[in-house]
């Protein structure tokens, strides 16, 4: 069972099957299919040898006349992303259990999963681009169909914004393709070309803007808070948990090896933009009363730090970035799910209307607290390892590393401030409405939050397994850039 193509095929088949289920029982089918997909991922983890090489690679000829082939494979950078995708999607489906969605909803999620997996395992630019766009269409429909508020305008903005970024990337890809004589699109070829510095400069921007919009980095983030706030919880989880990792992954897989000279020239600027995002996101998160918006802005801060780690360009920081991508995915899904539960119980997610939930929902409070600690980065949680590695790496990068680390380090303080404020306003104090008994979490809610809590602690205590996966590939990547 080590045929990588199955990981693409199964979600597509699932999507078609699920689209025809018109009853709410589709959620069970969706859960089972996504668990099968997760099960199929396990053999790859077991057989993976973390030596920096590309494994399980497959190549099919695709469009012969244009010399385009379909190439996929796994290495230490893409494997954690595939694990993240296939691991989080069952959780996200579980999180949507109380919403009585029909098959179409889950069909779109499965289709998106296929696109995401393709982005992570693609080893030629054409397949990468196809996956990149294929993941965008379903999330647009998920957020626009099941969202609330001014969903049509907001999601149109999101779509056009990201699509424009993708087109810039497409132009860069086509340029590279023409450089090979118009007959090769494979990652190996495109990343081993000697391009002139001025070419690399604009290639850097074409890729960087596409990825920065997706991540989103300051100042390309303006679509993000609205889309997160008004999307359905499953859509928000997909966007923040997995989809933004496409951008970060794109930096590692494509931008760094293709335009190392552009990176040398503009890397500091990219680093500064990332760090602005850290401070900016944190400060705004502190002012937010809408819990979902708060997490949206905190997400800008977190991914800013991850991207700063990538641009710091050393073994520690990039490995930390990969680990933190997974951590962020886990904790953000947990946090959005908690907000979803609170909103369903009390009818509001505005911090003004909340308070005193701890006394009636002790189990939720404990889970919330642990996930929160992970998001802040307290020791023995997953966030601690990630942020520690990131800051350590940033600290030892170049001349201004100390200052970058100081600014990036504010995330620890600011994060603690706005997260604890969130916890205090919602869980502690007096009940705002002062009446009614709220049911504590139970059933699928308890299962889901327990899984997340376990992951937060297990990765926090034993991060070595995950770090080993990426070690070889990251040093390979750094060698290639130098």
């Amino acid at each position, binding site marked *: 069972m080590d045929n990588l193509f199955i990981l693409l095929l199964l979600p597509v088949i699932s999507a078609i099957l699920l689209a025809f289920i018109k009853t709410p029982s589709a959620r069970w089918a969706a859960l089972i299919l996504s668990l099968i997909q997760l099960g199929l991922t396990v053999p790859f983890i077991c057989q993976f040898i973390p030596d920096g090489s590309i494994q399980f690679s497959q190549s099919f000829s695709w469009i012969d006349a244009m010399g385009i082939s379909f190439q996929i494979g796994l290495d230490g950078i893409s494997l954690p992303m595939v694990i993240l995708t296939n691991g989080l999607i069952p959780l996200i489906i579980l999180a949507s259990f109380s919403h009585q969605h029909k098959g179409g909803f889950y069909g779109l999620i499965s289709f998106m999963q296929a696109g995401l997996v393709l982005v992570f395992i693609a080893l030629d630019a054409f397949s990468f681009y196809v996956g990149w766009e294929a993941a965008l269409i379903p999330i647009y429909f998920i957020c626009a169909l099941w969202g609330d508020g001014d969903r*049509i305008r907001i999601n149109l903005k999101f779509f*056009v914004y990201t699509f424009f970024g993708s*087109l810039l990337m497409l132009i860069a890809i086509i340029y590279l393709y023409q450089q090979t004589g118009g007959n090769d699109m494979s990652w190996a070829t495109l990343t081993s070309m000697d391009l002139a510095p001025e070419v690399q400069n604009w290639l850097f921007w074409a890729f960087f803007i596409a990825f920065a919009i997706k991540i989103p980095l300051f100042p390309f983030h303006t679509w993000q808070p609205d889309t997160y706030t008004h999307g359905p919880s499953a859509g928000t989880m997909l966007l923040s948990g997995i989809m933004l990792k496409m951008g970060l992954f794109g930096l590692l897989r494509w931008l760094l090896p293709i335009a190392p000279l552009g990176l040398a020239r503009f890397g500091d600027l990219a680093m500064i933009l990332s760090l602005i995002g850290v401070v900016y996101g944190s400060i705004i998160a502190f002012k937010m009363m809408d819990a979902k918006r708060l997490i949206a802005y905190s997400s800008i801060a977190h991914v800013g730090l991850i991207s700063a780690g990538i641009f710091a360009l050393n073994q520690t920081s990039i490995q930390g970035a990969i680990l933190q991508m997974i951590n962020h995915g886990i904790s953000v899904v947990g946090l959005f799910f908690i907000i979803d539960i609170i909103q369903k119980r009390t009818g509001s997610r505005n911090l003004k209307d909340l308070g005193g939930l701890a006394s009636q929902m002790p189990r939720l409070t404990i889970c919330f607290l642990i996930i929160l600690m992970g998001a802040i980065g307290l020791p023995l949680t997953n966030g601690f390892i990630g942020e520690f590695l990131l800051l350590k790496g940033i600290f030892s990068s170049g001349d201004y590393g100390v200052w970058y680390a100081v600014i990036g380090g504010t995330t620890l303080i600011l994060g603690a401030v706005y997260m604890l404020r969130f916890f205090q306003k919602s869980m502690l104090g007096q009940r705002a409405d002062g009446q009614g008994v709220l049911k504590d979490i139970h059933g699928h809610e308890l299962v889901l939050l327990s899984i997340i809590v376990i992951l937060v602690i297990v990765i926090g205590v034993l991060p070595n397994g995950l770090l080993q996966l990426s070690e070889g590939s990251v040093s390979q990547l750094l060698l290639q850039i130098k």
Partner: protein
Amino acid sequence: MGAIITLSLLGILILYIGLFKAKNALLPVSILGLVLAMGFQLYDWNQQASPLYQGMVLFDHFSLSFSMLCTALTILILLLSKTYFKAISDNLAEYYTLIIFSLTGALLVCSYHNFAMLFIGLEVMSVALYILVGIRRKDKISNEASLKYFLMGAFSTGFLLFGITLMYGAAGSFDLAALKQYVIANPAEISPLFYAGILLLLVGLCFKIGAAPFHFWTPDVYDGAPILITIFMSTVVKIASFAGFLKLFSMVLVPLDAFWTPVLLTVVVITLFLGNISALMQTSFKRMMAYSSISHAGYMLFAILSIGTTSGSAILTYSLAYGLASIVAFGALILVNRHVGSDQFESFNGLGKSNPGIAFAVTIAMLSLAGIPLTAGFIAKFMMFSQVMSDYHTVLLVLAAINAAVGIFYYLRVVVHMYFMKPGHENTVEFPLNFKIVFVIAVILTFILGVYPNAIVGII
């Protein structure tokens, strides 16, 4: 050649069938005839191609593939026409005859090898259309469209003829091979007449394909004509004109590209922006499609702009993707219009709930027109973009990217209306069998082409 003869005879046969009032035989006979014509084209495919009849026509793979595309699209369009014409006019036989004659002209335009044939082809194609556009005699808008189309068409033909004459004056021949010889033989001393001829010809052809700034007739004519005729005009006629355009430039005028590239570049940029921005402003789906077809003409001109060995297959792929999507989009408009009585975006409201099948097909068509991966439109756009990139028109590509992003706004608007708006009308839109067949074919082909385009990409 068999195809063109078959179609000419078929047109006359249909007229006779109409005379004997055998109305039910019209459609089957037309389609059988078209299938027969395609058979002849397939037969010709394997023959050695050489100019026939003193170099009048040439059936090489280039012209045959475009001819087959035009014929196949006409078959799909006729399939949609089963009940359509009956509702708007009594002269049923004339409809089929005129469409078939127009197609005959289109095939001539695809396969000419002599300017005389280009001119005859364009006229046969257009004259039939002048009548078709105005066939709803009592409808003012239809009449206006017809008159406008006729005047503009006559005007552009004038330019075209003038251009041809000037080129004849310089080179002494109408034959493409002779003209090519003339251009290659003495590149340094080409007569100014010839250059003036190129410019006039360019203007005439840009009129036909509806490229800005010669596009003013397009929205009104597309809007005023019966929808089925609009489909025919915006697909078959346009594709044939592009084939003729490309043939002239790739066979004869390549060595002079330093002269005409700046002109065409201006045309392309204006076309892209005018088409897209105007499409953005429309409230009527039909007019939006008209303007979007202008902007697609801009993308298709990319292949002529950076002409090369792959230009032919790039335009062919683009035409196919665009043709399939247009048929679905306009076909859906016919159904919706029949039900609601309006061409506005609002008439699509709630279609996602009431008719998931139509809504899905239209969504795929829109995504294909917007150039989203996994649909034919993406492959087509990709080929066009890489065509332009091979000449390093990077700035043009960035402009094209901006336009493609703008395009998303109006293509998604239909999708928004179908899925996110409450319907103004109650019951479901009728979805007849013939429409189902055409939609299924078009959607499946769009996907196949988008996922595995090998069959078409390297065909020429």
